[in-house]
């Protein structure tokens, strides 16, 4: 009996292609995305984009920048002044930055690392890269710094040293070469995750609603609806509007919790937030309708949508911060609605901006919505029942 049941279950899975993909293909794919993100993070190989302001312009500073440039694989960009660099970090053009502000040989802490409050890991990586660069590529500079630090001590007698600094002087740590300064602006990571979670669940909610298309087909309702005066267009159009409205309400509830519980500044730019929410919900609705129209049964649509949405979420930054991802994955993320939604929410709520990125995001999300809806319309229009 047990073997019979075993065989029945095995055949069931073997003949369920979508199930096979969900069971055996999706987990490794999601793992690959996470491994790319966190594997790189733990090995210190994050593809950090950094900015630099060189206020010294000495041979040492140029050598340090050269070394960092090599270590960051060319992702180090020069900026004219600190304000410009701070703006670049705030707008997302750079993940973090460093300011070379004093003679590297004799200033106690000549380098300041500017850290975005939402991307502290990027600041940590850059700080570590600076320390390594100095130790490995500029050992002579380190020696000069040590000499400069110990020079006043070397001129004293041991008794004078003891009196001046106490018994612990010999064990005192040198000041850090690079110190971090966290830029102001609350915690944008909360906005990031509010956006990331919002788009993740918008997709699933929209799919749940869109699958009523399949139910209608199965129940013969589609036959009856097909006779309606407007044909398929109003049937799909009404559904698109509903799913969009539902998505906006869902996003509002989520951001309301974030605003009340975690001080996410929802009211700071409510109109731009609303426009982003509408575009995000419409994009989800369009994609969900296209999948539902293309699938014949719920059994088909469920795994297909789960697979697609989890992959999109992983690549798009809904599961792990985008700045932790390898550059290739970050680039790939721009093909997903998730990345655009996250970037738009961050811009309008954290930076209070409706900048080019936001306008682009609205355009891309609206295009997803239109393309999905038109695809659904085309498929349903061609489908004769």
């Amino acid at each position, binding site marked *: 009996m047990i073997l019979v049941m075993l065989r029945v279950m095995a055949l069931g899975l073997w003949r369920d292609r979508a199930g096979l993909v969900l069971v055996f293909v999706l987990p490794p794919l999601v793992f690959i995305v996470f491994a790319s993100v966190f594997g790189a993070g733990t090995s210190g190989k994050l593809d950090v984009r950094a900015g630099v302001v060189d206020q010294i312009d000495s041979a040492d500073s140029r050598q340090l920048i050269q070394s960092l440039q090599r270590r960051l694989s060319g992702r180090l960009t020069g900026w004219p002044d600190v304000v410009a660099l701070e703006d670049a970090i705030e707008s997302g053009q750079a993940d973090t930055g460093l300011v070379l502000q004093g003679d590297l040989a004799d200033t106690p802490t000549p380098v300041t690392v500017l850290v975005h409050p939402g991307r502290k890991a990027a600041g940590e990586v850059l700080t570590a890269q600076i320390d390594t660069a100095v130790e490995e590529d500029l050992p002579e500079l380190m020696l000069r710094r040590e000499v400069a630090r110990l020079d006043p001590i070397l001129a004293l007698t041991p008794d004078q040293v003891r009196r001046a600094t106490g018994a612990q002087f010999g064990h005192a740590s040198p000041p850090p070469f690079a110190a971090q300064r966290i830029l102001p602006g609350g915690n944008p990571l909360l906005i990031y995750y509010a956006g990331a979670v919002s788009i993740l669940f918008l997709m699933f909610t929209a799919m749940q609603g869109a699958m009523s298309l399949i139910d209608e087909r199965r129940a*013969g309702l589609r*036959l*009856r609806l097909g006779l*309606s005066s407007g044909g398929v267009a109003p*049937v799909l159009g009404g559904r698109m509007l509903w799913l969009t409205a539902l998505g906006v309400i869902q996003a509002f509830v989520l951001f309301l919790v974030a605003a009340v519980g975690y001080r996410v500044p929802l009211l700071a730019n409510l109109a731009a937030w609303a426009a982003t929410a509408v575009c995000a919900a419409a994009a989800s609705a369009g994609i969900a309708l296209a999948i539902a129209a293309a699938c014949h049964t719920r059994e088909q649509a469920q795994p297909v949508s789960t697979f697609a949405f989890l992959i999109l979420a992983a690549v798009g930054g809904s599961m792990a911060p985008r700045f932790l991802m390898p550059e290739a994955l970050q680039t790939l993320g721009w093909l997903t609605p998730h990345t655009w939604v996250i970037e738009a929410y961050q811009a309008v709520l954290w930076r209070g901006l409706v900048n080019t990125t936001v306008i682009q995001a609205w355009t891309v999300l609206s295009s997803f919505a239109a393309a999905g809806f038109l695809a659904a319309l085309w498929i349903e229009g061609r489908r004769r029942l």
Partner: protein
Amino acid sequence: MSRQVVLHLAKATRSYGNQAALDHVDLELAEGEVYALIGRNGAGKSTLAKAAIGALALDAGSVRVLGADPGRDRNVRREIGVAPQEIALYPHLTVAENLDAFAALAGVPRTERVSAVARAMEETVCAERAGERVDHLSSGWRRRVNLAAAIVHRPRLLVLDEPTEGLDPETRLILHRLIDGLRGDRIAILLISHNAEDVAVLADRVGVMENGRLMVEGRPAELMAQAFGGRTELVVRLSAASPSVESILASRGLAPSDRGLSWSGTVLDAVTQASEIEMALRWVDVELRELAVHPPGLDALIGWATRSATGSVGA
């Protein structure tokens, strides 16, 4: 006065791969006429119904409803009502909400919608359940509402797919009266049914389909007379199949089914034949489960139509 042709199919042909679902079907249905389409499962009845309402693209031939192609003309689609075999309703809406939604989708103006819904509920005798959700209704009530949704916009062509399936006699009678009333309102009705009573009571004409072809059509009484004359259907059921009985039963024009356990056919002087068969079977020691004589039913008519079309057996 001649009646207007509402539905006209000319050489309607549609295939799925090598399988012909519709094979050069010609059919005309006039206003106030009930045309019953009968045939075995997979014969092409539902395909024909879908083609008739423009929900199925034809490979060849044409479909016209009131002179227009229902697949392309939105206006003529408003003149069609359909009650599919499935309960094509929104289960989470009440009866009245469903009918209101379908009336709106069919283009009934807002001002006329309340009266249209009330009339449809009255005709299908489901007004007393107007406020109940469809998923709380029994199957009989759902089927009434399914029909109400098909007529709420007063179509001129009504396609009914097994409208009385699973209904109790009382509800069946209500639907018979309703369909009769709709015929009186000059609505053309294409009825797909396996139910002999529906066909006998309601149909003005019957068409028999097999393998996508319309084998024969005509008035029910004329068709039955043509098919069976004074013959009666004789049904024999055996406890076990036996080669020794095959010649006995086949020689009397009976055909086997159910792996030789069941034999049936239309015969003259059925009572005498039944008695002779009973004796013959006792002689070869085969146990008889059932020996029945009754007027020929739809299955017999379908069988006759198929055989006569292929020329295999005469009536």
